[in-house]
């Protein structure tokens, strides 16, 4: 039986009848309309939240253990770290947090608007469409279908589906409800929902602009530096507008409900909202400090990240002070416990985020587990606990019975809290340890830990503690599911549909208080400018805006668009931001095929391709990375984490094809301490030669200068020749015979790896030009 099913339950359509009323909706008299809320959709999203939470936590635990025990992928390509890590992040963000957001929005919007959702059909299409997207992600990511952009890995057909479900079903349904609301003022939680819907749509569309090459493969229209800027504009703001603003909306609605008192300061919430949406969008480039991105852009990102601290803490303070005079309830109520710790973690994360954006701190933290600790403090502490707090508050109301076990909810809280602490403390220790080891020098001025794997094995105990913490958090999630199912089982045979009533919202022009809402100049001066200025200063413009959802949405769009435009437009138009290098040439057809294997296996989840201009990095990896090296990289592969070493100069530092062949077969054969998974399937699976030409033609369409290579048959012939040459190199060095390996995927991947970084040492081909203004 479905969670939504209310045995014998009925759904009443809103109807109107004439009556006198003095409702609290901003109108004084009018016909009362009666209506019911659609709680069935909230039940569905609430159940999906807990179900997908378990999936996300379980996959997270598995990949955490794989870092200590790489054999735990069981030798299967579908369960390797590189393929499962995107599944974990997508499940946590879009499945767990996403469904929690929708449950919160559908429950609170109806009540704040005094209106049933605009369309029950759209609500159901939204629910099933979103679950279908999640299932598609769960199937395609382990199969290696990915765009290789963090938190935006899903391939283009799923991207289109996301846009349809988000805008066409969710957005239309939400704004339709706002338009049909019976409450004049749009409560601040609704503002955060508006910002979420508008901004996520904008981010998703612009970051997903690709040229498809078949149903499951595409290449972004951006390359290198520009692709990186757009991706982290998206990536950072996915955190901002998917994991922050909707959860702040959730906080502003559910925390006062649970505490049974209004939010501490509504004035502060207004400042909090506008400051946050205006500032957040600028902060993305702080993910690219010391990279090939122009310095002005990352400095801009840093500046706004530091400024972001103010509104973030304004929100945290507003949340915590809402409990003024009600702290005694926290000891009794698991819901408030979850909320208090959740908001506290919000404050911690939003202090740490600006701190990590400061270049000096970032130079130590970036690519290490410090970042992993930071995001999990936010994801588990803030998103996780706010979502679980909301679920526990909703359960008795949605299923019209008591929560099955308050004690179990208390256990969930304490187990989850201990789990988070074990997780983040171990990752802080691991991150700082690794960062310091990377930059340590001995007395002779050499790297103290020249073998990268030394800095990985040192983290082994921390990884075990992290896995224990993750396991406890998963256990908490299982307790929540048990409580959910048992509460559902105790539901009444028929859900009682409470009928609410409120007068309809009439246009301001005919409302009784319309005159009061229209500002009049208090000045006696004759200048029109003076009168208009005085009306503006009275502040009623914003009050009116708070009642107009479409205008409000447009202003939010303007606020979030400014930051993106100021950063992106110069980056795309000013050539000096991406000076080209004459010796950097397009990848060969075989290298392109190898690059796609690198992407499909998710190698970017563990390896960066970006050497920062930091002495220890240049000493370890070679010359620092230049913007011009990446002009043909669709997509960029800079990565954000170094579980393995940087590969930007791998072609120069380790061109031995046989070493790479053996390394892919079993990394422990060449380095006994390696935690990299083995890739035996690459040694048996064959290269898809039929796609070689199509891949080159797609790249040419994106502006990569392939010349005659796009002619029929040329690319494949070139690829076969290069594959034979690499196979011969391996065979001559004592590896397997040429005929046994030259058709295998591993040869294409080795071709790509051997190419990394070598162009800088080459003589530019005749006629090649470069520019740097």
């Amino acid at each position, binding site marked *: 039986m479905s969670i939504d099913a209310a045995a014998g339950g009925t759904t009443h359509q809103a109807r109107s009848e004439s009556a006198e009323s003095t409702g*609290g909706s901003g109108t004084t008299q009018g016909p009362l309309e009666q209506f019911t809320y659609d709680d069935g959709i909230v039940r569905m999203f609430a159940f999906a939240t807990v179900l997908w939470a378990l999936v996300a936590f379980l996959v997270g635990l598995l990949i955490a253990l794989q870092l200590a025990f790489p054999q735990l992928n069981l030798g299967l390509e579908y369960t390797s770290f590189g393929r499962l890590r995107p599944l974990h992040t997508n499940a946590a963000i879009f499945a767990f947090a996403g469904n929690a957001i929708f449950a919160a929005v559908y429950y*609170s919007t109806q*009540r*704040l608007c005094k209106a049933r959702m605009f369309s029950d059909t759209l609500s159901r299409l939204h629910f099933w469409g979103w679950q279908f997207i999640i299932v598609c992600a769960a199937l395609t990511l382990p199969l290696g279908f990915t765009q290789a952009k963090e938190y935006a890995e899903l391939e283009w057909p799923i991207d289109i589906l996301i846009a349809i479900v988000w805008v066409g079903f969710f957005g239309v349904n939400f704004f339709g409800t706002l338009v049909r609301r019976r*409450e004049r*003022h749009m*409560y*601040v*939680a609704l503002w955060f929902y508006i910002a979420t819907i508008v901004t996520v749509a904008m981010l998703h569309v612009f970051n997903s602009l690709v040229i498809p090459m078949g149903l499951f493969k595409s290449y972004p229209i951006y390359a290198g530096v520009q692709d990186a800027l757009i991706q982290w504009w998206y990536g950072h703001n996915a955190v901002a507008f998917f994991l922050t603003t909707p959860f702040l909306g959730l906080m*502003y609605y559910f925390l*006062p*409900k649970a505490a*049974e*008192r*209004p939010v501490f300061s*509504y*004035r*502060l*919430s*207004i*400042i909090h909202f*506008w*400051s946050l949406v*205006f*500032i957040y969008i*600028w902060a993305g480039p702080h993910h690219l400090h010391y990279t090939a991105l*122009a310095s*002005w852009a990352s*400095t*801009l990102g840093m*500046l*706004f990240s530091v*400024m972001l601290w103010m509104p973030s803490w304004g929100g945290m303070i507003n949340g915590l002070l809402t409990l003024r005079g009600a702290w005694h309830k926290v000891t009794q109520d698991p819901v408030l416990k979850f909320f208090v710790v959740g908001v506290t973690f919000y404050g911690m994360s939003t202090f740490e985020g600006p701190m990590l954006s400061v270049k000096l701190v970032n130079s130590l933290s970036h690519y290490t587990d410090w970042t992993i600790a930071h995001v999990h403090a936010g994801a588990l502490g803030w998103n996780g606990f706010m979502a679980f707090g909301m679920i526990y508050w909703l359960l*008795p*109301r949605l299923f*019209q*019975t*008591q929560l099955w076990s308050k004690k179990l909810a208390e256990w969930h809280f304490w187990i989850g809290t201990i789990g988070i602490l074990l997780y983040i403390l171990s990752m802080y220790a691991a991150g700082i340890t690794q960062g310091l080891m990377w930059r340590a020098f001995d007395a002779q001025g050499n790297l103290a830990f020249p073998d990268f794997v030394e800095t990985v094995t040192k983290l082994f105990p921390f990884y075990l503690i992290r896995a224990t913490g993750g396991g406890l958090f998963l256990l908490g999630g299982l307790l929540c599911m048990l409580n959910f199912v048992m509460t559902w089982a*105790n539901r*009444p045979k028929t859900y009682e549909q*409470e009928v*609410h009533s409120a007068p309809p919202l009439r246009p301001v022009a005919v409302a009784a208080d319309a005159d009061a809402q229209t500002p009049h100049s208090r000045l006696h001066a004759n200048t029109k400018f003076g009168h208009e200025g005085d009306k503006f*200063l*009275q*502040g009623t*413009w*914003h*009050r009116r805006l708070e009642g107009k959802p479409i205008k409000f949405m447009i202003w939010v769009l303007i*606020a979030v668009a*400014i*930051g993106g435009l*100021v*950063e992106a*437009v*110069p980056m795309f*138009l*000013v*050539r*000096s931001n991406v000076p080209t290098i004459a010796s950097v040439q397009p990848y060969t057809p075989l290298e392109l095929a190898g690059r796609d294997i690198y992407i499909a296996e998710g190698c970017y989840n563990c390896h960066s391709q970006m050497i920062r201009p930091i002495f220890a990095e240049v000493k370890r990896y070679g010359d620092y990375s230049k913007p011009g090296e990446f002009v043909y990289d669709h997509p960029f592969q800079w990565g954000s984490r170094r579980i393995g070493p940087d590969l930007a100069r791998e072609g120069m530092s380790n061109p031995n094809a046989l070493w790479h062949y053996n390394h892919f077969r079993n990394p422990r054969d060449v380095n006994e301490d390696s935690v990299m998974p083995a890739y035996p399937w690459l040694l048996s699976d064959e290269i898809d030669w039929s796609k070689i030409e199509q891949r080159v033609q797609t790249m040419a369409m994106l502006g990569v200068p392939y010349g005659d290579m796009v002619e029929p048959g040329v690319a494949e012939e070139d690829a076969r020749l290069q594959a034979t040459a690499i196979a011969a190199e391996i065979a001559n060095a004592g590896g397997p015979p040429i005929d046994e390996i030259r058709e295998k995927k591993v040869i294409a991947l080795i071709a790509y790896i051997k190419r990394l970084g070598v162009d800088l040492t080459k003589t530019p081909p005749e006629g090649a030009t470069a520019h740097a*203004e």
Partner: protein
Amino acid sequence: MLSDVFRDLDLSVFPTVGMIFFIVAFVAISWRALRCPRSDMHDAASLPLHDSDPIRPKGD
């Protein structure tokens, strides 16, 4: 043409321009928030508390 315009711009002013944008918006919003009557703020803040979904006894 746009490319020429942006090439001639001093990009180091962008953080300053961004800061000015923010300050203007921040002052305007703060002004609105601080000017609003206390009763309006109280009414708005109380909106989530207007409705109540009672918790029914187990098995009811």
